[in-house]
């Protein structure tokens, strides 16, 4: 049945486009995934990440470009021929079938023998730790259990690719953390190649070998989590990766080591990430890296403070009205005047709007 090889070396998106009427959901997306990798497609809603996944699964035809598995073009194959295991956002479990029959469905479609199906289904249920729930209907399971059934159903057919569409978005915070670890464990144990769609940067950073940040139907940056976390290539990627302070700045001087910039009447040193074309720049800073400092360059008044266990996170305003998000280990009170500063290596400078 499956004409797609499990032993591929790489998956390639070659200028893939998808139009919905006049709306371009994907614009010439090119991407390579190596076998065994865990790739996260990360982006805000509407960025095209789910469209990309559906195109890969075969549920949506492309309007341009091609998808290749080594040198086999797969984008015109029907989903049933591609045989990629997919975990849907709403799990899409068959409500009229028991857990066991749900998991065995793919094998039944492959016309495997009864004994083989039974044995593989049991193994898959053991892998997702649901061996004792096999006879229940999906409606009788909790959200986390349903999610694991969906994973078992997708991986039991030993697909060349496992596709996951925000599988954790319907779970509560605690279960989400547990299932996150579970998903990674299953990926490593089965040795599958996983493409995982999410809008949660924490999830992407903790799960993926490589993250693909998407925005407006294009790929903005591809890289390992630590690289994306520490050195986002563009200001919009930085914003999405948790750099809440995106401050318009003027470039005073710059050299290979860094740049001297001014924000309002304060002067800071930072690291240049994007080639500067004018003296307009954007300084990106995580709240975690902006902390009270006796001789910090940014003078501000605290507006609000939130206690988050590992520290105080606050909002402050400078004299010129710039809003700053900062962290403090010591308790601060609204109305307090502070001086804030940051390590020059953690102040990332991007080309600003002209």
């Amino acid at each position, binding site marked *: *049945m499956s004409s797609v090889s499990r032993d591929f070396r790489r998956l390639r998106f070659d200028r893939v486009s998808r139009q919905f009427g006049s709306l371009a959901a994907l614009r010439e997306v090119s991407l390579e995934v190596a076998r065994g990798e865990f790739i996260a497609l990360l982006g805000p809603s509407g960025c095209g990440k789910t469209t990309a996944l559906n195109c890969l699964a075969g*549920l949506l035809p492309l309007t341009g470009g091609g998808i290749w598995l080594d040198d086999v073009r797969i984008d015109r194959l029907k989903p049933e021929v591609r045989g990629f295991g997919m975990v849907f956002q709403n799990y*899409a479990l068959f409500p009229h079938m028991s857990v066991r029959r749900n998991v065995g469905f793919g094998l039944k479609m492959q016309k495997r023998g009864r004994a083989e199906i039974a044995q593989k289904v049991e193994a898959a249920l053991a892998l997702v730790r649901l061996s004792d729930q096999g006879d229940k209907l999906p409606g009788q399971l*909790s959200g986390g259990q349903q999610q694991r059934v969906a994973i078992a159903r997708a991986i039991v057919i030993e697909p060349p690719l496992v*596709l996951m569409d925000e599988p954790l978005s319907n779970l509560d915070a605690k279960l989400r953390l547990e299932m996150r670890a579970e998903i990674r464990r299953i990926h490593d144990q089965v040795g599958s190649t996983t493409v995982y769609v999410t809008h949660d940067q924490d999830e992407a950073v903790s799960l993926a070998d490589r993250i693909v940040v998407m925005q407006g139907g294009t790929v903005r940056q591809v890289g390992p989590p630590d690289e994306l976390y520490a050195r986002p290539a563009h200001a919009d990627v930085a914003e999405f990766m948790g750099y809440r302070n995106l401050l318009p700045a003027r470039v005073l001087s710059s050299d290979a080591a860094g740049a001297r910039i001014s924000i309002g009447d304060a002067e800071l040193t930072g690291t240049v990430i994007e080639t500067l074309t004018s003296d307009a720049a954007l300084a990106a800073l995580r709240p975690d890296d902006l902390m009270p400092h006796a001789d910090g360059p940014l003078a501000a008044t605290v507006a609000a403070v939130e206690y988050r266990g590992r520290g105080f996170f606050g909002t402050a305003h400078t004299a010129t009205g710039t809003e700053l998000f900062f962290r403090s280990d010591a308790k601060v009170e609204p109305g307090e005047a502070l001086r804030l500063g940051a390590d020059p290596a953690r102040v990332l400078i991007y080309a600003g709007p002209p």
Partner: protein
Amino acid sequence: MSAADAVSERVPLRLRLARRGIDGVTLLVAPSILFVLALFIYPFLYGLALSFAPKEGGWLANYEKFFSDPFFYDTIWKTLRLAVPVTVINVLLSIPIALRVRTMRHQRILTTILVLPITLGTVLVADGLLTYLGPRGWLNRLLLDSGLSASPVHLVHNYWGVLLALIVSIFPFTFLLTLSSLTGIDPSLEGAASTLGATPRARFWNILLPLLAPGLAINFCLSFVQAFSVFPSAVLLGDPAGTTRVISIAAYTAAFEQYDYPLASAIAIIMGLVQLVIVAAVLSSRGFFYRGSAVAAKG
């Protein structure tokens, strides 16, 4: 114990009723209860009582008369011979059409066209078919002129005319019910089945049909009841004295030609019982199907 009793006695009646779900809002049900009592329960009970008060003979005389005279009891068979095929054909026909319409962009236009026969009424449809299928109608002229048939095909004033008229006039209803059952099935289930290697045929048999089955059973019952009470098309397009002397014609003749209301009531009761037997049989088969929500399960 006695203290608790004393407390419960002191709870006002209004609160005790409210606990059982009876309060001021319950009064809003009154008009509909009156409506049902006056227009359904009373006439039904009146007819039932009337059927046991025949013009002559013992209290079961009407039923004895019906089941001893083939002129009467054959009407059950004649009606079933029309109603069952019509319903089966309509339900089966509605599935592929609904499957196609579901994915159409201009669904509303097609749905409107298909629903038109309902709004036109059975009589207009019967009249139209009378002309269309008649010996000089378009169909026969086409068949004769093209040489496909040497003599006119007889499609009116017999069984086939009524069958066709019933299919045409009930199909929209059946179709709409099928379409609504089908649109209640989460499309991601089919997507999931296809990624698991299910061909369109396998998806239909393994996913769509099992989830559709309970809806189809209800659909069958509702469509069957309509077909079973056929009257206008059986008279206009059929052979009301012979092959399409359906049970409603027998009741009509008894009531308005022989003025034997008790007999007519008995026939109406028998008609209802036959429908009830079929409906109960079909609905009891629903026990074999999954009956929960057809939406992907979610916690």
